């Protein structure tokens, strides 16, 4: 069953074309990796999916779970089950992490027509989920992402993903700024959430993350398009030979 269908997406920022006819299909149960050199439009793709202002399509279509995504606001997309783990998670001084997590957890529950959890039950649930990601209570008492280290920020993203239980998760450079131990924790977190009903799209520069989160399909993105797709071996090939050979092959 397809979850996400992007067809010929074209998008420009400040009159500069960034996405130039990008197509991508993701089915339930699949893990995709999107790799590509700097400036190929990977982060633009993630903002476009999440619905950031200024990232509206010029042409093309996106459907998610058979809904036209382009008509929805970021919060509606999230409630529908789309999750973006930010490359640079945003600091929210003054907003307590625990309250924030409870707010987003209950807003998703409400949308799904499920019962919201009481404060106490939520805290119990949160502790369990946080423990799996080696997140200590002390961190949850701080303001959202405020003064977090790079690794803490990325773990906090995955914690949100675990609480929201999305249908599709887009991980934008989640490996950047992580040491090997943190990379393992984060990857395990993602793998534990993976099942036959949901999907993951990993956007990354390096093959390193894909040692831990095994992709079913690897796409190479360049100049606003996907120029080559293949299995996990394609990532290994890129790691060994760089992007240039594939790029030359196309031009």
């Amino acid at each position, binding site marked *: 069953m397809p979850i996400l269908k992007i067809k010929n997406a074209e998008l420009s920022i400040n009159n500069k074309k960034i996405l130039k006819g990008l197509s991508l299909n993701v089915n339930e149960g699949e893990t995709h990796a999107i790799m590509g050199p700097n400036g190929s439009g990977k982060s633009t793709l993630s903002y476009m999916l*999440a*619905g*950031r*202002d200024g990232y509206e399509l010029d042409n093309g279509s996106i459907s998610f779970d058979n809904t036209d995504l382009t008509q929805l*606001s*970021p*919060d509606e*997309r*999230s*409630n529908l089950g789309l999750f*973006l783990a*930010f490359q640079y*998670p*945003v600091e*929210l*001084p*003054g*907003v307590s992490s625990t309250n*924030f997590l409870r*707010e*987003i957890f209950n*807003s*998703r529950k409400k*949308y799904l027509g499920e019962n919201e959890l009481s404060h106490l039950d939520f805290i119990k649930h949160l502790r369990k989920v946080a423990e799996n990601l080696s997140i200590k209570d002390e961190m949850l008492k701080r*303001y959202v992402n405020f003064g977090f280290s790079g690794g803490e920020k990325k773990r906090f993203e995955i914690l*949100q993903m675990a609480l*929201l239980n999305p249908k599709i998760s887009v991980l934008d450079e989640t490996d950047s700024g992580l040491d090997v131990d943190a990379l393992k924790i984060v990857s395990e977190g993602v793998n534990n959430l993976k099942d036959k009903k949901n999907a993951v799209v990993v956007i990354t520069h390096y093959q390193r993350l894909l040692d831990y989160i095994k992709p079913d399909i690897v796409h190479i993105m360049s100049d606003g398009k996907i120029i080559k797709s293949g299995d996990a071996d394609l990532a290994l090939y890129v790691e060994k030979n760089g992007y240039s050979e594939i790029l030359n092959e196309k031009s």
Partner: protein
Amino acid sequence: MKKARNDQFFSNLEKFVNKVYPNQLQRQPYLSLKSWPSPRDEAWKFSRLGKLARKNILPLNLENQQDFSINKLIKDSISLVFVNGKFEKKLSDKLLSEIVIEEVQIEDFKEIINKFDNLSVKNHPTLNSTLSCSQKFFKIKFKNDIKFYKPIEIFNLGGSENTSIHPFIFIHLEKNADVQVFQHYSTYAGLLAPFEIINLSENSNLEIIKIYDDKINSHNLSLTLSVIKEEANLRSFALIKGGEFTRSEMHTLLEGEYSNADINGIYLSSGSQHHDLTSCVYHNVPNCKSSQIVKGVLGEESTAVFQGKVRVEKLAQKTEAKQMSRAIMLSDKAVSNSKPELEIYADDVICGHGATVGELDEDQIFYLSSRGISKQKAKVILIDAFLNEMISLSISDKFHDIIYNETKTKINKLLANEYE
């Protein structure tokens, strides 16, 4: 109705005082002020009184006939109620023996006023009008060593569109007293001119929280003069949300070593409201600390001013003074003015100031939205965070929720209007 001349109010005032208090000579000197401060006056440059000058206002001298109900913020507080500027014993709670309310004469506190030797105090319309026409001058005295766990709530009520009311209060803490006071300004007055004097004796502690929530046609020109002795501590917090025009002006004199003054505040401005927090702190002796920290949220066509001044005398070494003003603009028609001033004559001091004005951060709004929170809710969360930081910094923990709730309805209104 015919528009008033610029000096109309002051001639009304003079007639009123000469008729009602013909034999009270102590009031006469304060009738020498004949007109409102003009915009050329530096202290009033950003807060213009033209509209107030055009109002035809008479001092109010009616005995209160109405029934007033008060809404205490603190369940077990002791209330003192002033209606039309007059103390209403019947509406107020019974006092405890540690508090004394007495009527005083201007002579009894004139010495304190004279310590503020500057023109913006001497020519202040509130000082002059209220000393000339307030019905009575009340002093509330808190005796030595009392630690007061029941806050005092002072309510200012009454008034009407074409009247002015002039409450006066002299708050005096004797040595080691520890007191919390809430001041509510919730009148219908065309002009409310509350004049307060605060006198803190050695090692006393006063936390005073002022909530300005007058009705929408009101001008409130509140003036507070405070004198602080050795090791005493003044913690003042103003929440301004009401009125057509509200200025909370505080002059604070640190005259005992190791004393401290925090003169902080929040303004929440909507419609065409004008809000002004003006504060001067005078460091006259060494080793004192002060802070003037103000945050505001402005919507629609509202305007706001923060004027903060710190003066550090040559003697006042080891002074620590900080000043900060931050405003969030929800509308591009709103205007925020900030005028920080440091006047430093000592060489061994730590003084800092800063000011920022901006919109809510788009990245933060997007981050919250991407987690399923609506844009409007995201703004509420971010404004709450902005204000909560300020509230935790400025007032005792036990009052946080109360003050937070006092901001809540106004914030919702500000955001609702933005979305209309």
